[in-house]
């Protein structure tokens, strides 16, 4: 009694049929993949890591997802939605591994998706995320706006627009965008961006409150919770509460024992408290798993302060290698390198080149941090007058950032503006007395010398 008899086989209309099937297929596959995401029980090593701090992270779920999507696409090469899913999966892979080669792969499949479905908000949003991740912020903003034009209800498109506007220095527009986003959908994604907007505008208490709400809002993903808790920790640390920060990092590690940013927060705590050996050990473990410049530089600085110049030099040299790798995969790293160079003048290139590069970066994305990097590069090359002008620009939002005030104070000091120097250096140390293992002592000494006058 086969029920096959009732199934009349329809005559074959390949084009239209596959269009429909492929479209639904993607949705179904996405759904099923999503099911797998939920159904997965916690990896055994996650729990082990709680007990054994050096346990290797579990084999990532994302690899299985990528593999199954690739297999699916080999059978159904016209399934636009699966290309989008695969692109997003590749982006996830970068975030988990730090390997920028996946950016190139993501770009390729996302453009395959776009070719087949040109006005798909998800694809455009994901392309926006990819562009942002590569620090191509104008492109990111453009994709976000295109996505928003297709789907005005999408909070995700607004998130991409906010990120792009913020990183292009369009702070007023960004504030309006995030207000729209949180009014559309209050959740972890929007709360965490409200926090960033508030932080940039000097509202530290408000930034903390919003980020704590973001952590409480939760998501289906432990990494998100770990991220938001780490951000709370970072906010606390940056404003002079290392003990509070430590508690948040530890909460983040409860949510996700292998979380690198939380571990990096703890490592920074160790360095700032004077435990360079502990910090070096912690950072070495971190860069072994995720060799990002941020951590490599921190490790190098620890070695330098610990009286190990050769070890420090090796780390600094690695920064150049990493930046080349990033650039090969389309990541714009100029701002990061400019600031590193300004902190370590002449190490990777002549200082004049650093200043020129910082100028170009500022021209492309006039953020307060690009202004600050340019100011600091100019300071290092003795151009104090212009440095002051850019430093003032950097402080235009009144962001409570010790480094910005430190740079302003040192510039004022070299311009013999004692009052401003005292004020700005005092601000820096008041915001966070341990704001930098390299520069906090300099701030302290300079301020002391001013008081002695």
């Amino acid at each position: 009694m086969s029920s096959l008899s009732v199934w009349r086989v329809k005559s074959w209309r390949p084009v239209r049929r596959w269009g429909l099937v492929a479209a639904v297929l993607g949705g179904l596959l996405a759904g099923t993949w999503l099911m797998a995401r939920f159904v997965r029980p916690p990896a055994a090593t996650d729990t082990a890591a709680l007990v054994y701090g050096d346990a290797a992270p579990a084999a990532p779920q994302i690899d299985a997802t990528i593999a199954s999507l690739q297999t699916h696409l080999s059978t159904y090469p016209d399934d636009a939605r699966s290309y989008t899913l695969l692109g997003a999966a590749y982006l996830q892979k970068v975030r988990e591994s730090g390997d920028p080669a996946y950016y190139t792969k993501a770009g390729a499949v996302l453009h395959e998706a776009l070719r087949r479905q040109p006005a798909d908000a998800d694809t455009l949003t994901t392309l926006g995320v990819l562009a942002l991740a590569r620090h191509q912020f104008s492109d990111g903003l453009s994709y976000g706006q295109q996505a928003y034009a297709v789907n005005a209800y999408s909070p995700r498109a607004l998130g991409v627009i906010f990120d792009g506007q913020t990183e292009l220095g369009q702070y007023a527009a960004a504030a309006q965008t995030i207000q729209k986003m949180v009014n559309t959908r209050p959740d972890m994604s929007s709360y965490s961006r409200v926090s960033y907007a508030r932080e940039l505008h000097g509202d530290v208490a408000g930034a903390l409150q919003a980020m704590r709400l973001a952590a409480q809002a939760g998501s289906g993903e432990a990494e998100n919770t770990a991220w938001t808790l780490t951000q709370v920790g970072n906010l606390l640390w940056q404003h002079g509460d290392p003990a509070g920060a430590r508690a948040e990092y530890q909460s983040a590690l409860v949510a996700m024992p292998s979380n690198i940013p939380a571990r990096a927060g703890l490592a920074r705590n160790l360095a700032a408290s004077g435990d360079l050996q502990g910090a070096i050990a912690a950072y070495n473990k971190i860069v072994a798993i995720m060799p990002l410049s941020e951590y490599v530089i921190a490790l190098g600085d620890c070695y330098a302060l610990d009286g190990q110049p050769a070890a420090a030099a090796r780390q600094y040299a690695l920064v150049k290698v990493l930046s080349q790798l990033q650039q090969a995969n389309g990541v714009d790293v100029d701002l990061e390198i400019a600031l590193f160079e300004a902190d370590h003048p002449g190490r990777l290139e002549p200082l004049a080149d650093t200043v020129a590069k910082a100028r170009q970066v500022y021209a492309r994305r006039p953020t307060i941090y690009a202004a600050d990097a340019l100011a600091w590069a100019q300071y290092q090359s003795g151009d104090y007058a212009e440095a002051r002008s850019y430093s003032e620009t950097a402080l235009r939002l009144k962001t409570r950032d010790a480094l910005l005030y430190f740079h302003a104070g040192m510039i004022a000091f070299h311009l013999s503006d004692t009052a401003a120097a005292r004020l700005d250096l005092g601000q820096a140390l008041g915001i966070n007395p341990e704001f930098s293992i390299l520069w906090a002592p300099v701030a302290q000494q300079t301020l002391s010398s001013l008081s002695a006058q």
Partner: protein
Amino acid sequence: MSKFIASWLVSAGLLLAFLVAAAVGPAPLSVAASSHREAPLISSDPQADNTDVYAFVSPDRQDSVTLIGDWIPFEAPYGGPNYFKFADEVLYEMHLDTIGDAKSHVTYQFRFTTHTRNPNTFLYNTGTIHSLTDANWNVYQTYTVTEIVSTTAAMTTTVLASDLLSPPVNIGSKSTPNYYALGDAATCIVSISGVSGGPTGSACGQHATMLGAGSNNIKVFAGQRDDPFFVDLQVFDLLTLRGQAPPIGYSSGNNIPLDGLKGFNVHSIALQIPISRLTGSNSLTGNNPNPIIGVWMTSSRQSMRVLSALGGVANSGPMVQVSRLGMPLTNELVMPLALKDAFNGLAPEGDLPLYTSGPGAGDLFKKSVENPELGRLLCSLYGVPLPREVGSTCNTGYTTPDTGRSDIFAIFLTGMKTAAPFTINTATGPVQLPSGFDINQPTGVVPADMLRLNTGIKGNTCSPTPNRLGILGGDACGFPNGRRLADDVVDIELQAVGGAAWQALVDNTFSFNPAYANALTDRVNSNDAAFDAVFPYVAAPHAGQDPHFADIYNSWFSLFVY
């Protein structure tokens, strides 16, 4: 959003949630923490994610209706150290349209507060939890139930009960032995003075002495339960219906149907309200002869002012709806991806304006109802004929008025009236309802998505044993007339989209081949756990030490992903 959203046509947001936002690494090459901030781009927000809504005349108390909402999809029974709970920051609401104008006239709000007895430990419990007041239970939630009545004249807010206890989660036999008793102890009664009067007190425990006898009391429960939904999740693998020969079932691998939600829990809020409070001559909204109540549920979170001029903390903002659920499969079978965001934030009174708004979102919505994608799929994959099919295209028209699936429109958006005689099974035998019989369509209804329950259809009018196929199975008390826990909405939807209700609801231009009823089923016909005979009816949750979950993992997950 029902749990289908996690596996069927996934919302754009949810999709990106797990692919993009999951990551929380720093931006590669961010030297300063402020160089570029890569916050999560989407959150799935499980505590605000409404998975299922049920509304039915209470089987053991037929002068009352029971409303049940479930939240937190795929809540695994194991947890620790942070167990699942309701969100303190979410406003959970049950909305009732007692008139048919797509507005909420009676709303029930639930707000939760987490308490920690000893803040110096993160432990949920420091010993065995013997009772709801056991000092060993360190982290617990209480909640408040508020009733808001809206008429054209006024809006009245009444706190029905506050500081009620949500029971602990079912951890295991060391922490929560005799769990059934704990859930029992958290079932509460609010005594009411008069039909539409205010509360005079509350008591908790299934066998609590009522504060004043009488039929006006409201019952309430909020806490962890077994997930009552049941479905073979492989239906989302290109509409595979296991247990059948290919092409419908699999030609290789495991072709045995399995409830993919077996072993999972949810967090349920259940409310039982006298029918006379909602409809009838002495209802909350005055004399209301309409017996049909429309039900939907929402979750809302608070927005905030991003930049306060004074620089202080500004957390005052409106509550924003982030989840909405009425009919069980609207957001999955009807709403296309492009409209899911819109639907989540839309109130039902916005449905018709959207539907008729013309090119763009409006036409997309219209097409999704009148030419549903699921129907096109059944037709193109399995050759299922469709009512009003245009030629052999598998499309049903929608561009000119009333050329498409009026049956889907009725089921989802207005409630149903028969267009032909329709036979139901009752306690006294088969009864033929005449043409024009109003099953659950309010007079002058404003089309909007919500579950519609006719409180006048009950008792002997129902099938003597509930039929899981509801109306399609001849049981007038089943889905789509309301929704009972045991109604098999997956099968009912598959068959309805296949045209099973066409002749009863529209005309005789199409006749559903009953042979398809045997095929349009996922062959998972009941929940893994038996429902209770008493309120809140949803079964007690699986314990964290329960092994059933692993079965699902091994049998389904490994099959598909690896």
